[in-house]
């Protein structure tokens, strides 16, 4: 590969963060952001002058990543997760798992009820988040308060986007005024508008000073950073304006904000529902859920609460820090949630109520967890290998609950922050090799295990995936989340067992059972009818095996989850013996075992 290492010394200093440890630094300090946001003032005129040979160059790029350091960083990430193997990671970025700052800003700000957003973007940047994916995550037909300047070639090469943005602002304002609605307009930059140097700070100040302009830093920031920055920015920006000048004080020691829930967050509806229940149970008075369920006009409420609960580790914390009140992250698991409730009680001065709530929850909400634990299915927990690939909150939360509290064998855990950091190409190889019992992740992992034809059960734990989670009955967080997850995992175990039990396909087994050939998932039993009448039990168990064949057999069976090993062994043994017989060999060889392997679901 023609690498351009020479550039790295020129461009690296700002990119030289420590990416070796998880989680990477997330928060963008507010001063840095506002400096960046005001740096590009080349408006209408500035853009035209930036055309070179039909291409345009963005000049005001704040942060530069060296190619070498980027590649090195990805390798180091891969090494962290995959060990030695990770060092050999090919540089093939696969299946983007996390979006960028532009999407982050769109999802974080459009859920505010009196916001109208105009994105300065081409058609795809509008339709992908606003009418396509939102259908399959939040079940919304479209983001109704989102409009687009709809950048076309003429704006890219000649005109710039200012005219179209101002036109859209004017029309939205007229539309809302006609309805008598008071809305806050926010214009947001996209990757394309940033690339062509479109910046509307000055023109908006001039024509529509009431509208806000947010630079989403679409190239530099990932979706979480984008959400984090957008929430902080809106808070700070409002403070500078007349509507944000009021002195605000804390209402009472028990007022609580929840910060973070917004569109297109995995399972957020059920988790928010549970989080609210926990806050109230601990004696808190839920004051403001920001940005979800919030209004721009009500944002003073952010300062009125005594304690903030930050729903996700990925974003929202920077705003919580800015607010200057104590904050807690939303909890996972039985123990994690108990700690959260007691700590929240301590911060609010409602310790007794919090303790009483925990006690009551044990007898009610959490009782199924105790009962499942007492039962036989739990015996298999420690034999279940789990891979978790999710946003940091879920990756760490699931690891803690499933691994530390329930004792499942949690292996691969990947906290997704920056896009492509984890090297999906390696992950794809790794999952095929590791053969976990359960893979908790996104559509990407689901594809990887399907491609590799391994029988791992997939459980959703992260976007991207078409998965509507609007029901509040599927929480992963809190006490109810602990119960729901335990129930889900246990049912998945039953599924593993179902798949591996002998099954006879109707109509194919006239006379006697031919259990091996008739398994679902195996190929049609084309050879079976012509093969010799299969061995009865004694013939099978008495048939000789070479030592090597037995070794291969053992090695393969080791990879099968404990819960399924008996049936899998039976199937593999029978198939290997039958194959050997039909090849007229006197003993089972390793080749025979490997040959029949694909027929066996394991």
């Amino acid at each position: 590969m023609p690498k351009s290492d020479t550039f790295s010394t020129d461009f690296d200093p700002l990119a030289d963060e420590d990416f070796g440890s998880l989680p990477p630094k997330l928060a963008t300090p507010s001063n840095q952001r506002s400096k960046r946001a005001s740096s590009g003032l080349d408006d209408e005129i500035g853009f035209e002058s930036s055309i070179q040979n039909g291409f345009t160059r963005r000049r005001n790029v704040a942060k530069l990543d060296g190619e070498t350091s980027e590649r090195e960083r990805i390798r180091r990430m891969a090494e962290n997760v995959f060990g030695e193997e990770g060092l050999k990671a090919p540089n093939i970025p696969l299946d983007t798992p996390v979006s960028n700052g532009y999407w982050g800003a769109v999802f974080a700000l459009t859920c505010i009820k009196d916001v109208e957003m105009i994105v300065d973007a081409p058609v795809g940047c509008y339709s992908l988040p606003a009418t396509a994916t939102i259908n399959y995550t939040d079940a919304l037909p479209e983001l109704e308060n989102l409009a687009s300047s709809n950048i076309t070639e003429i704006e890219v090469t000649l005109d710039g986007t200012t005219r179209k943005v101002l036109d859209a602002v004017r029309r939205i304002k007229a539309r809302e005024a006609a309805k008598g609605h008071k809305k806050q307009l926010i214009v947001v930059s996209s990757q394309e508008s940033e690339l062509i140097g479109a910046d509307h700070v000055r023109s908006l100040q001039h024509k529509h000073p009431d509208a806000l302009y947010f630079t989403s830093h679409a190239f530099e920031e990932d979706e979480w950073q984008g959400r984090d920055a957008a929430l902080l920015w809106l808070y700070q920006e409002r403070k500078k304006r007349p509507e944000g000048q009021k002195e605000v004080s804390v209402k009472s020691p028990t007022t609580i904000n929840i910060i973070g829930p917004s569109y297109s967050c995995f399972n957020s509806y059920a988790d928010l529902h549970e989080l609210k229940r926990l806050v109230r149970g601990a004696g808190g008075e839920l004051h403001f859920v920001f940005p979800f369920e919030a209004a721009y006009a009500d944002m003073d409420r952010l300062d009125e609460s005594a304690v903030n609960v930050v729903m996700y580790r990925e974003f929202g914390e920077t705003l919580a820090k800015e607010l200057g009140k104590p904050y807690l992250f939303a909890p996972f698991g039985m123990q994690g949630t108990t700690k959260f409730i007691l700590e929240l009680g301590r911060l609010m001065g409602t310790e007794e109520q919090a303790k009483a709530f925990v006690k009551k929850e044990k007898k009610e909400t959490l009782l199924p967890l105790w009962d499942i634990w007492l039962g036989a299915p739990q015996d298999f927990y420690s034999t279940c290998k789990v891979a978790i690939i999710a946003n940091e909150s879920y990756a760490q939360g699931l690891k803690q609950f499933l691994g530390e509290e329930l004792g499942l064998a949690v292996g691969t855990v990947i906290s997704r922050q920056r896009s492509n950091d984890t090297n999906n190409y390696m992950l794809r190889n790794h999952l095929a090799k590791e053969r976990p019992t359960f893979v908790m992740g996104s559509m990407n992992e689901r594809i990887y295990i399907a491609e590799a034809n391994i029988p791992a059960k997939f459980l959703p734990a992260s976007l991207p995936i078409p998965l509507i989670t609007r029901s509040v009955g599927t929480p992963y967080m809190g006490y109810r989340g602990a119960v729901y997850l335990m129930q889900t995992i246990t049912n998945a175990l039953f599924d593993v067992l179902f798949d591996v039990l002998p099954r006879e396909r109707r109509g194919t087994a006239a006379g006697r059972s031919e259990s091996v050939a008739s398994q679902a998932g195996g190929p049609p039993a084309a050879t079976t009818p012509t093969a010799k009448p299969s061995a009865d039990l004694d013939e099978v168990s008495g048939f000789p095996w070479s030592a090597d064949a037995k070794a291969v057999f053992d090695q393969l069976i080791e990879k099968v989850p404990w819960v399924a090993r008996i049936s899998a062994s039976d199937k593999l043994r029978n198939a290997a013996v039958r194959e050997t017989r039909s090849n007229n060999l006197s003993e089972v060889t390793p080749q025979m075992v490997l040959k029949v392997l694909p027929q066996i679901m394991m």
Partner: protein
Amino acid sequence: MPSEELKSGRSINLTPKESSECSMHSATMCPAFGSLRVTMRIEGLVPVLVGAVGCLYGLDFVSHFYASNKPIVSPSLTTRELVETDLTDKVIGIIKEVVEHENPQMIAVMSLCTPETSGLHLELLPRKLGRTEIIPMRVPAYGVPTHAEAKDVAISQIIKRVGENMAAEGKTSDGQLDGLAVIGEVFPTDPVQLGVAVSRMGVRLRTALPHKDISAYYDAPKAKVAAMLHPFYDRTVKELNSFGVQPLYSAPVGAEGTYSWLKNLGLLMQLPNPEIEAIADEEAQKVADELDQNRLDGVKIMIAGYEGSELLFARLMHEAGAKVCYVSTSIKEGPGTKDDAAWLRRRNIPLLFRKRHEDDLEALDEMAPDLVVGSSNIEAVAKRRGIPAVYYTNIVAGRPILLAAGVRPLVDQMKLILSQLNTYRNMRDFFADVDDDDHVREPLKVGI
């Protein structure tokens, strides 16, 4: 810069609507999805999508849902590449690694808005590495305005390459063209039906594109006639034309459509007229018989999709007795739409190309249809009003529509939806107090 491809998208952009207001709510999927949909379904092809992270995330999402379960190689642009010119080197480097580790038969490199703007030089990519063909496809949304047209980009680029290969190997047909190729994503048995019908005229159906086998693309340039079953394959027409393949537009949909399509095919194939006349008449009669049995008389139907095949569906609905009150599509008017557009206009059916979402909303207000077949957002608006509505892309596009076998399935489907009228109304009534007068939703709340 891909002047040819960009020009074709430009016409609409430079022509303001009468109201002089541009669209603020797009009426198409991100265009690049079209090329992903075609390429991801080709076996032995690795798709490489170059763009900003947000674009890659969204396109990965929708194409893993709608196109195939195939991973997508997704090099994203970093800030550094915006100011330096080594983006091309980076993409080449990644392609080399893909070839080294996967050794695919073909790699399609699709470039989105941002690399197109910042100067990704697709023309500098190697044509071939080892056995792997590397095919560039430029699909910036500002230049290729719909995902339908991006399908055209994908197919035409592959045909261009296989044509060059055939020429280099001296394997072109030298004017000895034979048979029929059909272009357009249709129901799997539609080409089969078509093959049977044209075989009566002595015409062999060679291939149907898009196809999962790369070899099918090598077959298309050998056909005498290529039937553009969907109207937006202008680039593909141009490529095939360079081999002497003649395009046939429209499709055998409905009785009149079947008759004229088979007649036109006969003409292009230079077959004796009386025989063709007889066969065309007979096939059309079969369609007419089906249409007699499957009626939608008096149903007022609004068709507002973005797939580009809406005109054919409108013809079928009209012949089945429905009152088609509005047809809109996101593709542009062109040679491929000429016959169908004229046919619809002769029947005073309002027809709109390069529509805006706002146009559909206005039409919905004005027309008060019984049934809406449209994009997912217009569908939602209609359902809010208790009007039976479905998503064109899921329910109509790619379903059986050709010849006699193409009548009943879609008519039945429409009847089925209409039979649910009470369900749609009950739903609307139940949730009537949820939405305000403008049908604008209060933001979501998670109640407890």
